[in-house]
């Protein structure tokens, strides 16, 4: 077992939120077409409120802290927030579009000992990238920021959200990552907006294309393993919990709301009126999420994919039932293996009009 797994198991046993994603703002200098956020400021936490939250997170045992947004660097106090987080011993990962990173910021991030910076790049071609971000010149500026980060020794990951519009450019972004000495990560999941609006799902990669992505060893590693049929569902799988959300991880919004995950908008409490540890340990919503095991899922518990499916309870929640299937993951399980899923069968029976993804036969 790797040390990271051991650490996770220990955190799970102790009930410690090992990882927290903190969005310091929803404001952004880009307007990405697939973004799930509303960008108006509805009352962000002040610097001192954030410092207090950081202190509470450190006391609760949080170790991995992702600072993100919106674009975190539009906050003038962003570097102070990061500095405070580092003083408190967090392992900090920063998610930014890098548009605002100049020499000074790159040097500062390095000095502060930020572990890595993740930057979303949609294409190696300006016309494609900029049409996703709706900010002219954004690829040029992001790349300049990335090069400065690399020059000053920062570890950088390029995150490539694949959608209909940039599907052909995955290889280009991968080559770009190699050229600047960055890691590369693809993400074929476009999620609904946090306000429940599902319009942006039309941007998702179509099923037919997902099929070729999942069979491209450059993108998924060993195709045979990736697309292998799921193992038989045993007691370990039935007693297992779906993911880290609410177990060893959670999310804090710029408005001090606490959720099980950035992709799981179930409000569990607000840090303006409650202590983090009380929300984490006692909020009924957190306890409910924490109580759910594979065997408790009405449809998925009878699905042969249960052991390997990436079922996201947050996406399922946004579809109306946190214990239900997540149709995006149902689709992925089916496209990976060619084996029909319990969620598909259930939908065929009920033809739910709220379906996020229509699964067509291949």
């Amino acid at each position, binding site marked *: 077992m790797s040390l990271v797994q*051991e650490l996770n198991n220990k955190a799970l046993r102790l009930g410690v939120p090992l990882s927290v994603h903190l969005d310091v703002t929803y404001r952004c200098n880009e307007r990405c077409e697939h973004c799930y956020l509303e960008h108006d400021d509805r009352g962000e936490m002040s610097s001192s409120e954030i410092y207090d939250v950081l202190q509470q997170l450190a006391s609760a045992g949080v170790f991995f802290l992702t600072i993100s947004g919106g674009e975190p660097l539009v906050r003038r106090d962003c570097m102070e927030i990061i500095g405070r987080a580092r003083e408190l011993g*967090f392992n900090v990962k920063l998610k930014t579009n890098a548009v605002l990173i100049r020499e000074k910021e790159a040097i500062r991030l390095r000095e502060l*000992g930020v*572990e890595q910076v993740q930057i979303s790049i949609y294409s190696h071609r300006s016309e494609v990238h900029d049409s996703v971000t709706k900010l002219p010149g954004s690829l040029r500026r992001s790349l300049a920021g990335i090069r400065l980060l690399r020059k000053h020794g920062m570890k950088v990951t390029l995150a490539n959200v694949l959608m209909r519009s940039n599907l052909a450019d995955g290889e280009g972004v991968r080559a770009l990552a190699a050229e600047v000495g960055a890691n590369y990560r693809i993400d074929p999941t476009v999620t609904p907006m946090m306000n429940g609006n599902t319009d942006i799902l039309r941007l998702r990669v179509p099923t037919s294309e997902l099929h070729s992505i999942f069979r491209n060893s450059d993108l998924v590693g060993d195709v045979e393993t990736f697309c292998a049929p799921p193992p038989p569902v045993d007691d370990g799988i039935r007693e297992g919990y779906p993911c880290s959300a609410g177990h060893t991880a959670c999310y804090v919004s710029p408005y001090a709301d606490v959720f099980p995950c950035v992709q799981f908008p179930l409000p569990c409490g607000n840090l303006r009126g409650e202590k983090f540890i009380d929300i984490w340990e006692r909020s009924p919503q957190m306890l409910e999420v924490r109580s759910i095991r594979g065997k408790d899922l009405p449809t998925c518990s009878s699905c042969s994919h249960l052991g390997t499916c990436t079922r996201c309870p947050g996406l399922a929640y946004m579809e109306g039932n946190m214990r239900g299937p997540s149709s995006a993951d149902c689709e992925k399980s089916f496209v990976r293996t060619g084996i029909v899923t319990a969620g598909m069968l259930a939908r065929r029976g009920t033809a739910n009009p709220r379906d996020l993804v229509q699964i067509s036969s291949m």
Partner: protein
Amino acid sequence: MIEKYPLRGTQLASRVLDGEVIIMSAADSTLFSLNPVASVIWQAADGRTPLSAIVREHICEEFDIDPETASRDAEAFAEELKSHGILQLLDGPIPAAPQATESA
């Protein structure tokens, strides 16, 4: 033996979890989990306390080990932590300036 003053590195993240120190180095994203003796050295490594004092005041007492074994173990652990960039082993104490010595 020449006296050494252990000092925590600055490019590290750390947290004490159930008495165990976990450390991640930003330089190479490696995760470390320190054993109890190494944890004590790490927590006392302020760049002003000599290793011998850490051994005397913390290790011998907390672990009920004889001074000779404790020094030998402590030196070995300190060297190992140094080899991973987790500690510096200084030849002399750093000047008293708390904000400059606190590592994250």
